[in-house]
């Protein structure tokens, strides 16, 4: 039972392909090419982030068409679509940070101290997130408009009539 493994003989094995021993050594080798690749990667991420930010707006015409097709009556299909329209903005906004995390720019290796550039933070990609918010609000607005056209929003005085109260009469007529 003295079988021991001698690890020392693997110490000088080369790293697997793609794994550099140290960044400094690789940057040394082709720092310029790497910099260009990461820059294009960042811009790609940014453009993907923009794409994602305006994606709710892109689907608006399709949703509008669906609403048109589902009709103005209060039925299971129209109600399903309306609920989807009303709920998805809130769902999207609740998950806004995780949704944008993949597109967050890779933090520069130097400033690890800065916490603002964490991919899950709200301040990452603020402009895209703002546009995303607006686009989701547009979806919500579409859903609300549909609700209104279906007569589901308490907009008129008639919707509040049942809650109105009147006091006792000021004068009593004996009849």
């Amino acid at each position, binding site marked *: 039972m003295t079988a021991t493994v001698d690890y020392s003989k693997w110490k000088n094995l080369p790293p697997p392909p793609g794994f550099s021993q140290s960044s400094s050594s690789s940057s040394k080798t082709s720092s310029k090419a790497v910099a260009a690749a990461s820059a294009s990667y960042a811009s790609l991420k940014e453009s993907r982030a923009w794409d994602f930010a305006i994606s709710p707006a892109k689907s608006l015409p399709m949703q509008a068409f669906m609403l048109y097709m589902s009709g103005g009556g209060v039925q299971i299909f129209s109600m399903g679509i309306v609920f989807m329209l009303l709920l998805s903005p809130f769902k999207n906004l609740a998950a806004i940070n995780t949704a944008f995390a993949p597109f967050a720019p890779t933090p520069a290796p130097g400033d690890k101290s800065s916490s603002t550039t964490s991919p899950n933070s709200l301040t990452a990609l603020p402009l895209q997130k703002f546009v995303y918010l607006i686009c989701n609000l547009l979806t919500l607005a579409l859903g609300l408009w549909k609700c209104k056209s279906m007569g589901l929003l308490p907009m*008129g005085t008639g919707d509040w009539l049942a809650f109105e109260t009147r006091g006792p009469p*000021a004068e009593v*007529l004996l009849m």
Partner: protein
Amino acid sequence: MRVTATWFWLASLISPILAIHASEAGIIDWHKPLVGVPLISSHHTAPSFHRTENARDRSTKSVVLTTTASNVVAALHPENGTVAWRHTFDERDHVIAYKASGDRVASISGPGGAAFRVFNVHTGALVIEQQLHTLESGRLFEPPSLGVGLAFESSSPNSDVFVLTDGHTVRRISGGNGEVQWVWSSPDQSSLYVYSDIVTTPSAVYLVGLAKSFAAYTIHIAAVSPTTGELLASVDVPSTVTDGPSQLLVLRNKSKDRHVIWLEDGRIRSLKLSPELKEKATATKGALYKKLIDVKLSEDGQLVGIKQDGSGRVIKLAEDGTLKVTWEFENSATSKAYTESMYTGGKDMNGETYIARVFWSHVLRTASAHVLAPHLADGKGLITGFTFPFATHSHGIISHVALDAVNPAELQVLSRILVTTSTGGVQLWQQDQLQWTREEGLSDIRAAEMVELPESKAVTTQAANEENESFSARLSRQISDAKDFPQYAINFARRFATGSYASVSSSVAPQANASQSLSRDTFGLRKIIVAATSHGKVFGIDSSNGEIIWSRVFGLGWAHEVGGRIIPLKLFVTKTVGDAEGENPQVVVVAERKADNTLVDTVVFHIDALTGADVLGVSKDKDVLQGKDVIAGPSVGAYLFQNDAAKIVILFDEFLQTHIFPDTAFNYDVFTRVVKSLHFPLRSSAGTSRTLTGHKINPVKEFTGKHVAYPTWTSAFPSNEEIRAIVTRPSSSPVASFGKVLGNRTTLYKYLNPNALVVLTGTTTAAKVKSCSVYVIDASKGSILYHSVIPPLLSGECDVKAVFTENWLVYHYYDSETGPGDQTKSHRIVSVEFYEGNKGDDKTSSSDLSSYSNASTSVYHFEQGYIFPRGISAMATTSTKYGISVKDILVATDNGQIVSIPRRFIDPRRPKRKVTAEEQEEWLMTYDSLLPDDPRRALSHKYQILNARQILTSPSLLESTSLIFTYGPLDLFSTRSSPSGTFDVLSEDFNKVQLVLTVLGLLGAILVSRPMVGRKKVKERWYE
């Protein structure tokens, strides 16, 4: 047209009530055909027995004929008191006399006798109808039956009839076709003399009347030829008649001679009638008389004379023309032991005569009848006496009797006595047995209310003192309480399984042999209708079947000595079931007592609505009901004030002093707290026209200890208009919604000013241009909110019926003007709705806004007129517990139906074009001017409800269902209506069994599949 038809079809499809089901008729509704209170003042109109003989088998059949205060000629079956037939006369065509002969009964009606009709006496078929003169040209007499008379030429079936009308005109009318053969009018029509009686003989028709002379009347007789109608002779008989035509009789003796009999200076005088009128009058000797009584035996030559001491004598016209006293009733002289006697005559099937004397004995407290059969006991006369237990505490006093008798064996007389009571009851007594009673007083209900019944009391043995009860005692009590549990459980299971719940379309009337106390049914469809009649009686009627549960006679109080009448003015429910736990509901009747010495008092009767007991505790249960004199004088207004604390009746006397009832310290406290906000309108006469004056009550007491009201405003109606009627909203009409939501979700806020009321006016008789008006006024300050002018009837009168509920006014009138275009004369219904502000969404909160605010008159209205196919006599709306159900308009039409008009048909906002999608959301239909006469909307089914003048509606416990009770000068009818359908109960055809079976099946499926699914899950775990 196509569109309209489609819409109508659609509407009828959606319309909640299609019709009353045939299976529900007689179960949810009832109808009491009445004939009215008999007119007993004249022998022309009073009830009588009439017997006809069937020529084939010589069997006889009798009916009771009468004319009544409800303007009806009716025949009753004497066996059971049911109505054989009745004929109602038009309102302006009052029946004033009838006379039966053989199979026919002739009637005269209208002023002076304008119309002549002949009916079949058994079927009521109208045989002859002849207008003798126009209603306007008739002469009005007091009493109206003066100056008219009927005489049949013979008793043969189609004999001609001689008709005396207007006091001076005689016509011979053919009995076959009703043609007038000849007319004779007295040449002197200066109304100096009036003929009051007509008799026929083959040689002459005699008219007997009175001519006015200085101090008294003299008798005037005319003889007219029966064939040509020429005057044969006329004579003024030197005579002095002081008591008018009632003391003037014409008797016929066995030799068919006619004699005029009258009373002059206490002597009976007699004059034989001959065509030449040359005979001289003779006078009787002996006793002095003070009165002659016609016992309807003048054809047999008999009458009753009352001597000076009050005793009655039967006097017969002998064959030689002399008057003979054939009988004197024993002990009939005026006495304090019994009332003044009533005499009446009758005949049996052989034509023999009988005379009855009926009186009330104060000593024995029973009614007695002495029936004289003059032909029995070898012509000496046989008297049969008996007493009958007339219930004077529940029927008042006997005011008229009619006699029918049979002579089944020698020396035995059986008599039937038809009694008309002062409370409007009609009773038939066969000897001392009461055969039947008809409460005809119900045909003249002055005030009525429906009172909710309490729940049936659960039978629990209530512990006397629960705190100090020992454990064992409590246990035994609760075990004894639980003894009914198995029964309850079985009932519950059965009810659950079979679905045998209370049904809304079933009868809620109590079982015939049920002895349980009065309690409401599951849905509150059974109530008590408390109705006070003008004949001084108040009834508690079961609304489920029309049975009279209790009745009380109003006592006269101090006026008992002098006599008088009690006329109910108003009836208020002062305590309902919800007000006090365990106490019976109570009603208060405010009545006016008109004593015969012209004194008028206001009396209040406080009654337990379930038993009729006197709440005041003054009168005993088996006695007349004594009231409380609240005002020594007439009252100008009586109102019910109610708030959460109390229900108080507030009365005002002529000096506008306030009286409250019940006059307790608590009620006075409640009154003083609200007195500042109280106000009321009163009708007042300013100059010649009657106007409306608003009043408030001074919160400070006067030195008399009473609050006095003072006027605050006077109505601004034109001076030539006077108030015909005031229509207020129903007292208990909760408002479910303060507005009406339109298709575009804006709201029209209902104008619910609690002070608004409707005033119907008409121009005074002096006005040249006649018109009628409908006003809606704010009764706290007199401002006019709505005014419309309506054309009057052709006669210049106004016949407008209106109903006002929430913000909705509906009125009905007859448009007798032909306007431009193709407008025609028609009955119109106008529907008006009032809303706050002047457009949608305007809100002034009118229901709690002070009337003194500027915004209180900010109101606009929608109105639309519709053509209704019929005239109506009464109008009301349905009323439900919370006011959520749609309100339908109920009308009593002139063809004797109660018709419900759905609100959707008379919605004032029906557009006069194709309806838009938004209007469709409101269920509006395109305007169609004609309301179709749809027989399916008749709630009265096949019954003919004659003369309904009032419709009383009351909510049930079901929000969907409204109870309806109609009354008028004749029939009573009650039914239910569900204007929005019975949405709050399961429909009758709901399959409860199927539901239970489905639930049980599902339960079984779960029980079976549950272990299977469990096993499968375990197996899945193994083979995962």
